[in-house]
């Protein structure tokens, strides 16, 4: 599994002095050791074989397109979205620090949002009933309870977080009162 190429980094602090001329020439024009090149070429050739096999099936173009779409969907949509949401939350915290409790309250928002969001990410087709009848024909049941279940789990997460956060704020106040 791990055909480890010779790591050309810290182990060889001055590689160009020790390597033979041919390897130095590869490194100069290529940017890494020859093993790096060979391993990548082997990987691409294998991927090429997989693509060649893929072309034998129906709608292989659709499969290839979705392969690229998922990459872009994460890097240019999902990631920027959750990063911006988190940053706007923490910027608000920095801008109005005096109005907010002195416990790291932001994590009492982050944790339920993250868990609830992840549960939605892995079950939104059920939650939003996007199966266009396939769920019912496969199971004999209507896909009706999932939205309610996800909302209840989300409510539970935020409630638990609020209880813990409230307890933390309260215990901090109690500690401050005697002084």
């Amino acid at each position: 599994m791990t055909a480890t190429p010779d790591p050309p980094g810290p182990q060889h602090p001055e590689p160009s002095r020790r390597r033979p001329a041919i390897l130095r020439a590869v490194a100069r024009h290529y940017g890494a050791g020859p093993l790096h090149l060979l391993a990548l070429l082997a990987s691409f050739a294998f991927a090429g074989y997989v693509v060649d096999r893929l072309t034998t099936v129906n709608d292989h173009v659709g499969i290839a397109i979705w392969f690229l779409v998922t990459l872009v969907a994460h890097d240019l949509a999902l990631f920027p979205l959750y990063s911006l949401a988190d940053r706007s939350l923490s910027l608000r915290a920095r801008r109005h620090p005096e109005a907010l409790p002195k416990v790291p309250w932001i994590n009492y928002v982050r944790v339920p949002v993250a868990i609830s969001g992840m549960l939605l990410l892995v079950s939104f087709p059920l939650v939003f009933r996007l199966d266009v009848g396939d769920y019912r024909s496969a199971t004999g049941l209507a896909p009706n309870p999932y939205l309610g279940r996800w909302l209840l789990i989300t409510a539970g997460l935020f409630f638990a977080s609020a209880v813990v956060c409230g307890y933390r704020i309260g215990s901090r106040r109690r500690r401050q009162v005697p002084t």
Partner: protein
Amino acid sequence: MPDADVDDRAEARAASGGVWEKLYEAFGRPRGPSRPEAWRSPLRGPWLTSLFGSVLLVGIPVMFITGLVSYAAYDPRLPGNDTTPTHGILGFYLFDWLTSPSWIYRVSQGIHVILGFALTPIVLAKLWSVMPKFFAWPPVRSIAMLLERLSLALLVGGVIFQFFTGIFDVEYFYFWNFSFYDAHFYGAWAFMAGFVIHVGLKFPTMRRSLRTRRLRDELRCPLSDTRPEPSDESGLVAVAPAAPTLSRRGLLGLVGATSLATIVFTAGENIGGWTRAIALLAPRGRSYGSGPTDFQINKTAAVVGVTQQKIDQWTLEIVGAKKLVLTRAQLMSLPQSTQRLPIACVEGWATEQTWTGIPLAHLASMAGIDKPRGVQVNSLQPPGGFGATYLSAEQILDPRSLLALKVNGVDLSIDHGFPARNIIPAAPGVHNTKWVNKLTFHD
């Protein structure tokens, strides 16, 4: 993540006289997320990335191997069973599927699906930790780096494609036109082409980075003592980090808790028993009731076109050295066997029930075939979509393989395959053909 090792970069830069740098001068200064200062999280760093990476280094091979096992479980070398018949060398490892232990497919496929849910947060956390590299400017500084970035398209595109096709398939969200089997099969191999090379190139870095901190110490380190990892050439550590709002252990706890939540709310559909009640977000976590035939249905009779009229006209045809036609009453008078066996679906859910019926081996010998090589199973259900299957000699001869007439002491319900259905130990769910109306034994 996406670059060749640092010294090689420096070497290439020095040697080529900054050809790549000149190329980028035309674009001016980097903007937006391409500016290193844009990345503020004090938690990103090679140790954190390597920790997530080490979890995936175990998890992804388990996913891959259980996926290969599931393909083998369909016995694709038998006539008509292969969902990806033009797989070429990619089926090199195929073997005759087993019948013992009867829970093997249930466990292996349960791991595949539930682990898929559980690893989703880890994959996203790993991607989060390396995102500065995706936007790093300049994107390419040598041919080596260009090739490595291309292979990362296989890795990152592959991992997301596999997770999304897998999760959407188990939730019946088929917004695509392609066959799920084609997409998930070839997607897996393309992903592996990127994964193996990535592990090969980054394993030394991962090991080195993991040695820079001890997990035990990090788990004791509160927010007030949380500092960024020392800045290095990895490009992961923020050059202008914001003050931490979450400790490193807090982040690990959050990712772990999220992963755990996906397991808690789905695993019960495979484990069954009382855990099914808490599998609130599992497609197959729901109860059908408390009667003897109230368990998970895969495809109702109505949806595959099995009507009451067809059932009323049903007889079982058995073909071998001779041909027999039997009614259900005649089948009921044959020696019956009772077995407790699971139905385990490729979608990860399972349900174990007590089945009563005639051993397939007995039906083979009734047809005059004592040493069957295989049996073609046909059904009232049309042949497409697993309406027809082919079973191996081992599956026929296992005494637990039944043509079941009853379940939990009562007649099968129509949705569970009345008048007769197969139940085969360790076979994937769809090989337990319902509404069986013809068995053609070959010797």
